[in-house]
């Protein structure tokens, strides 16, 4: 708990420090990372804690974003309406997709969640009235009162930070609650959990829906981040990115999603923005293939830390 508070104090001081060194761009980048941290954390709930390898988490993230985007285009810009709607739609999508997918296991579950997410992706790509391939531009960020828009990098950063703190605290409570204990037991030994009297399917489905709802919140935030909703948010590559964040940060650890989002997006940014002299002399256009470089770095991290980066901290504490 002390460590968590320390991290959040540092994160709260970050914009002030950036302002001092004239680096406000980084505040915007940081907001983006924190939003992805929420999305990755929600995936970690199903994947890490629940043991359900969902390869379609982008469906809920993207659905939340499109709900906010479409409502904004249609004139409903109030965050009080649009955000709960985004969460509700994402939760409903998770309920429907989960209800069907959770009847399967293993590779079939991975494939069926992927298939559902891709279906949703193609539905939105074909919605020409809402941008189709090109995505959807919003008239501006959501509003919280008649004339108060959530604009400004400072305000936005602190709002996102507060929501991340809320999500992490709720997750912390959840995994230590009765429900969390059952989810843990199901991941450990599903057949036995059923055999001591837990209706396993219902617990898994509810876990899936909660994660979907949180992903919907993250989607609502990402739409506001740049007032633009891209269908790529729904694409399977997005699901894969979230999964990489979770694995990188630490599967089934409270901070796994946060660390993973920070490292992955931070790396991408670093490689694209800072040219390394000796590497450039070998391969002049290496920065155009940032994905390859990110992949190489990820490979190294995963090999050095098979339990994710959060696992490194844990081991050190126990040693």
């Amino acid at each position, binding site marked *: 708990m002390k460590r968590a508070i320390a991290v959040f104090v540092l994160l709260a001081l970050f914009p002030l420090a950036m302002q001092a060194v004239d680096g406000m761009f980084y505040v915007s980048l940081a907001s983006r990372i924190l939003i992805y941290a929420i999305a990755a954390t929600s995936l970690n709930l199903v994947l890490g804690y629940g043991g359900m390898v969902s390869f379609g988490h982008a469906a809920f993230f993207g659905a939340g974003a499109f709900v906010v985007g479409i409502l904004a285009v249609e004139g409903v810009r109030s965050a009080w309406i649009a955000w709960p709607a985004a969460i509700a739609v994402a939760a409903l999508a998770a309920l429907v997709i989960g209800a069907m997918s959770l009847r399967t296991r293993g590779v079939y579950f991975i494939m069926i969640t992927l298939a559902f997410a891709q279906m949703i992706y193609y539905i939105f790509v074909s919605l020409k009235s809402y941008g189709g391939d090109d995505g959807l531009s919003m008239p501006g960020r959501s509003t919280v009162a008649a004339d108060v828009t959530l604009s400004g990098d400072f305000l936005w950063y602190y709002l996102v930070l507060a929501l991340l703190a809320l999500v992490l605290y709720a997750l912390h*409570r959840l995994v230590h*609650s*009765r429900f969390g204990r059952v989810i843990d037991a199901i991941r*450990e030994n599903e057949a*036995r959990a059923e*055999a*001591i*009297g837990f209706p396993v399917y219902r617990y898994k489905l509810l876990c899936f829906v909660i994660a979907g709802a949180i992903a919907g919140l993250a989607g609502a935030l990402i739409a506001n981040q740049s007032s633009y909703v891209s269908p790529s948010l729904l694409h399977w590559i997005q699901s894969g990115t979230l999964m990489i964040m979770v694995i990188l940060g630490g599967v089934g650890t409270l901070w796994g999603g946060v660390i993973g989002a920070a490292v992955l997006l931070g790396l991408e940014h670093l490689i694209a923005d800072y040219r390394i002299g000796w590497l450039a002399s070998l391969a002049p256009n290496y920065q155009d293939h940032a994905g390859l470089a990110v992949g190489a770095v990820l490979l190294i991290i995963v090999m050095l830390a098979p339990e994710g980066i959060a696992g490194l901290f844990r081991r050190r504490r126990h040693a």
Partner: protein
Amino acid sequence: MLELRGISKRFGGVVATDDVTLEVTKGEVHALIGPNGAGKTTLIAQISGVLPIDAGRILFNGVDVTQLRTHARVAAGLARSYQITSIFRRFTVLDNLALAVQARSGSSFSFWRPVSAERALYDEAALIANEIGLGERLDVVSSSLAHGEQRALEVGLALATRPQLLLLDEPMAGMGPQESQAMIALIEKMRSRVTVLLVEHDMDAVFRLASRISVLVNGRLIATGAPAQIRADAEVRKAYLGEEIAA
């Protein structure tokens, strides 16, 4: 208490259980014996609701439970243990048992309050741990228990659901003589509280514990009766018991 009426199960062309009709009465230890591959574990899986049945009905306390899922049968008082140890390996002994207690005490759709604050769950789990002889091992992660201790926990998990009928699938599997004696003592101790359907290969244990014995061969029930009756039954001797009784 438990009535099986014409239970059958086929896996492709293989008949696992074939028209099994059997009644387990309240208070007895009913042993189910038979050679390997006779269909005993299949029958346990059918009674506990893990495997669907192709034909027949299952009545528990007079209520048809044929269509109920496993967790609902557990809630009705029908619990099982496994032949191949199936525990929550990363959990401690105490957490294993507390989880099973939690399954039957109140809703677990509770998301905020820490489960570790619920003293009642852990107190009861500790009592059960004492009963199964693991009272000194509460905080040991169950994967690092000795084989016999894991078998005891296996039975303890089923017991913690507070069943009326306990299905024990070879509780003494892989046990040494000393561990077997402890398990026999445990079953003796709980038989006053719970009815037991016991699948077991250890004939010593079967004849010491059973009030009645049923014999399953090739999926068919060939005899049911008191131990002495089964011992004397010519067909049973031929099919299964011969060598062990002669010895």
